[in-house]
């Protein structure tokens, strides 16, 4: 993939934003309301969603991987890497598929991505723990992803409207 | 580091041991010692005091009998100049008993295999297959005849000979715990020290304790048994190659070394359980004999049982899928049919 300086810069800014959103999320600890490990709003998904539409799957994936790697480095927790990567990549693949269907709005794509993200994380937990106990969280996590997915979809929709007059993604 | 962690965990667990009232209720304690997790449950009498004392004793025995702790009595003997040391009454008596078991089992039980086990890496968890010449050199120093009991508490070893009480220490520990429980009037108890079990008093409902014997073919399944042994008072100890082994070039090497060859015993058995009544000292005997019978193989083991040298019963699992139980256990053992072994009662 050959990136123009402009694209590269945009990718970097989006990666930084995704990281900032991941950090911001810590101030809204969803796990206090629903005590399940790994449960969160998934605000960073807004960036993934935006990048997917604006820049295409290749660059979106690049941003995702960079975000996961840097996030793990900043947190000093390489264990978390497998979780965020499995969740993020699963979500990415599902969202690519859903967005290509062209029938779904950002809301549907976002909900699908959130649900896939949770499936990926549960799979990572089952794999690293060598125990099927995390599976029991799956139904609840899927239910929760309806709301978190809708929320990130809503924010992304705002974002697209707000940026409609700009041309920042033009190469 | 692992030992430090285990010790820390043990200390914390000891601190976490809490009193919960109600005399008939079973209280429990966990002890991380002798490279295993020990689980003790008891009720009646001075349960709390008994469990506390048992814990302390288990840590003490771990300190004294471990070959990998430099400060242990065993290590002091192994590293003594001229191979001679005053080892204290307890260790001397234990070594004396070990030598008796070696003698009685025709050398199938042997505490002098230490350098050979180390060569295989079983002592330090650094598994490897030693060269034949290396083993031959080490085997020259193996055998009960290289251990000499001196006057008083003196014990001496021939040059090159090292002892390891690993095959008898947990059995001895179970005897010690049993004695503590009796002294404190414990009415019901189960004590499980990594393959060594002691039970007393039957369960609180007045029935015998049920002891599951692990299926050696499915060691990773917690509820896979070859059968259930019902026993109110007594010791039961299982030895099996499946408990510790490593694989190299497609071949499995387990931790029970045949003193005759220096190689893991290939006796056609996969698991041996030795059962005896709860008389004093039987725990040590069961531990030593379970290893010895495993090394002997089916035929020699059953002949040994028939000889009546020691009073015990046995459950043998063979590589070819048979489950052999000596006659004395016929009424108290129920094979688990789902395990798929051909069940035979031997007399």
């Amino acid at each position: 993939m050959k990136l123009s300086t402009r694209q590269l810069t945009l990718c970097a800014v989006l990666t930084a934003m995704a990281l900032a959103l991941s950090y911001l999320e810590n101030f809204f600890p969803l796990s206090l309301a629903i005590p399940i490990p790994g449960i969160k709003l998934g605000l960073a998904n807004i960036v993934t969603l935006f990048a997917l539409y604006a820049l295409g799957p290749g660059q979106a994936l690049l941003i995702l991987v960079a975000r996961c790697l840097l996030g793990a480095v900043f947190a000093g927790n390489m264990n978390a890497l497998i979780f965020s990567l499995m969740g993020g990549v699963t979500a990415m693949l599902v969202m690519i598929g859903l967005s290509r269907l062209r029938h779904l709005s950002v809301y549907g794509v976002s909900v699908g991505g959130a649900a896939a993200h949770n499936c990926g994380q549960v799979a990572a937990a089952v794999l690293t723990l060598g125990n099927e106990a995390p599976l029991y969280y799956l139904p609840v996590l899927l239910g929760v992803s309806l709301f978190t997915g809708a929320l990130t979809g809503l924010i992304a929709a705002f974002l697209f409207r707000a940026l409609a007059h700009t041309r920042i993604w033009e190469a | 580091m692992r030992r430090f962690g285990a010790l820390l965990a043990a200390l914390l667990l000891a601190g976490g041991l809490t009193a919960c009232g109600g005399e008939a209720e079973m209280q429990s304690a966990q002890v991380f010692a002798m490279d295993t997790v020990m689980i003790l449950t008891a009720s009646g009498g001075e349960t709390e005091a008994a469990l506390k004392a048992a814990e302390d004793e288990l840590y003490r025995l771990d300190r004294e009998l471990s070959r990998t702790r430099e400060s242990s009595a065993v290590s002091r003997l192994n590293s003594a100049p001229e191979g001679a040391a005053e080892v204290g009454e307890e260790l001397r008596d234990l070594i004396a008993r070990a030598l008796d078991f070696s003698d009685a089992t025709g050398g199938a039980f042997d505490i002098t295999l230490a350098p050979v086990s180390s060569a295989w890496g079983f002592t330090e968890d650094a598994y490897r297959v030693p060269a034949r010449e290396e083993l031959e050199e080490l085997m020259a120093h193996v055998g009960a005849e290289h251990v000499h009991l001196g006057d008083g508490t003196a014990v001496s070893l021939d040059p090159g000979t090292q002892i390891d009480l690993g095959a008898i220490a947990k059995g001895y520990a179970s005897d010690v715990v049993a004695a503590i429980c009796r002294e404190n009037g414990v009415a019901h108890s189960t004590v499980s020290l990594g393959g060594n079990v002691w039970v007393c008093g039957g369960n609180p409902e007045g029935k015998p304790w049920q002891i599951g014997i692990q299926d050696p073919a499915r060691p990773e399944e917690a509820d896979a048994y070859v059968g259930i042994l019902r026993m109110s008072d007594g010791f039961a100890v299982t030895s099996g190659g499946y408990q510790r082994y490593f694989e190299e070039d497609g071949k499995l090497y387990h931790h029970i070394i045949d003193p005759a060859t220096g190689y893991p015993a290939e006796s056609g058995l996969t698991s041996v359980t030795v059962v005896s009544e709860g008389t004093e000292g039987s725990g040590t005997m069961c531990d030593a004999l379970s290893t010895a019978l495993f090394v002997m193989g089916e035929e020699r083991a059953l002949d040994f049982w028939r000889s009546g040298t020691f009073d015990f019963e046995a459950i043998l699992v063979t590589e070819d899928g048979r489950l052999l139980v000596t006659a004395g256990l016929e009424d108290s053992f129920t094979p688990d049919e789902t395990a798929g072994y051909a069940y035979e009662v031997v007399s």
Partner: protein
Amino acid sequence: MRMKWSPELHPNGWDALAAAVVVVLALVSGALLYTGGPGGGDLTAVVSVDGGETDRVDLAALTGSEERVYESRGYTLRVTFTESSAQVTASDCPTQDCVHTGAITRSGQSIVCLPARLIVELEGTGDTDGPDVVIG
């Protein structure tokens, strides 16, 4: 605007369908996982670290509450067991998810502490034929 793809910004029937699929998945996985487990009966709490069982507490045998301490991967967790529940009451792990989970009371439920790789699971012990001790 010239995006790679222009996104649809208003929810439509297809979105409802996607949401419905997620709901169905949640219900089906819930039904598969939560049925079949013994409901009542005596509970046993199983504590495992790194996928290996490290402790087993027969909750029915407890009268009051009992606290046990587990160490794993440098973290210390205090778990309180009662006749009918298990709960991580304190942990020095960074996420605190295990503490937030609160008390679990039904067979099949579990508390997971990922940083410590520790799991507390409840098992039903309706099977009275199970052995008291296992050797080997």
